């Protein structure tokens, strides 16, 4: 490797929403290096004012997602090797969210929508009741399990053009959560969920473009979850008429 191969040319988006600009950095390349390491190197060695967010550094907390060469990714688990092109990288804050500063996006809208989609458990029992017995592999449970490991990283949210173009759209993660709960035998009030996702900006705004499922780092499939909601809401319409 010659000297040039040992450095990465990294373009980083700086500033806050509305006042963004790009800045270039040279970062030494290492054998085991993630995109988060590149960003950290810049802040720790080159420009101490660079802002970004991370916590767990192992793909569990979902706070480190950024746009890497235009694609949304969890940076702590993205090896540079996988994304680097001709020794260059471009890094920007997660798309479709306001920017707090530099690479740190404001995730508030994402979580507000999570709650708007009724994305929280509606209990049927209390702590004083025995736990519900649930057959682990029946069909309904498998549907609930399919999306349960979402880490709310908002990668799917950033990948989706419908989110980009429609402010009200709840987005793939929130809807997938709603679908998971809808299929959870322990959750009461499926109707509340169907109502929530039938409002404007709900599941019917999705165009099944599938970027969410393509980019989800945990290989979840929000697109199919949303399709499930569309099916259930449509069925429910006829059911209620009767």
């Amino acid at each position: 490797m010659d000297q040039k191969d040992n450095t990465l040319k990294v373009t980083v988006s700086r500033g806050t929403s509305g006042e963004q600009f790009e800045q270039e950095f040279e970062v030494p390349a290492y054998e085991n290096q993630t995109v988060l390491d590149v960003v950290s190197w810049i802040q720790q060695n080159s420009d101490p004012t660079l802002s970004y967010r991370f916590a767990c550094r192992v793909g569990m907390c979902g706070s480190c997602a950024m746009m890497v060469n235009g694609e949304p990714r969890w940076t702590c688990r993205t090896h540079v090797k996988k994304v680097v092109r001709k020794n260059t990288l471009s890094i920007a804050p997660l798309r479709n969210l306001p920017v707090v500063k530099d690479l740190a996006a404001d995730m508030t809208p994402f979580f507000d929508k999570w709650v708007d989609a009724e994305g929280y458990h509606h209990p049927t029992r209390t702590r004083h009741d025995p736990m519900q017995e649930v057959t682990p592999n029946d069909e309904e449970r498998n549907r609930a399990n399919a999306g349960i490991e979402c880490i709310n990283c908002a990668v799917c949210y950033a990948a989706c053009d419908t989110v980009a173009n429609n402010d009200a759209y709840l987005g793939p993660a929130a809807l997938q959560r709603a679908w998971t709960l809808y299929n959870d035998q322990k959750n009461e009030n499926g109707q509340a969920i169907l109502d929530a996702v039938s409002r404007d900006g709900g599941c019917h705004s999705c165009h099944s473009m599938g970027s969410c499922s393509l980019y989800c780092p945990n290989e979840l499939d929000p697109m199919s979850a949303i399709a499930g909601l569309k099916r259930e809401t449509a069925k429910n319409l006829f059911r209620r008429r009767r």
Partner: protein
Amino acid sequence: MLEFRLYMAQRLTALLMAPLVFGHIAVMIYAVQGGLSAAEILGRTQGSVFWFLFYGTFVFAVSIHASIGLRTILHEWSGLKGGLLNAVAALICAALLALGGRAVMAVTLL
């Protein structure tokens, strides 16, 4: 809820149109074999209740279907929203109905 209703309307009209489109394409393929002329078309269709219903249904469905589709696109790509968006969509629907209705009348009723 509005969007959900529009969604259902768009899907239902699409389902309605699908067989009509098939029929139409079949007719077209048959028709072009002999070369088109006004007389030919009119000869086949005029005075036919079947063709009136066939194309009438299509026009009705397509006006609803396309205006809903364009409403979505206008909202997503131009940011139009609220009453204005709905008004524009209704206008498109009305225009399509008018134009299409006139055409169906012309082709089938005289």
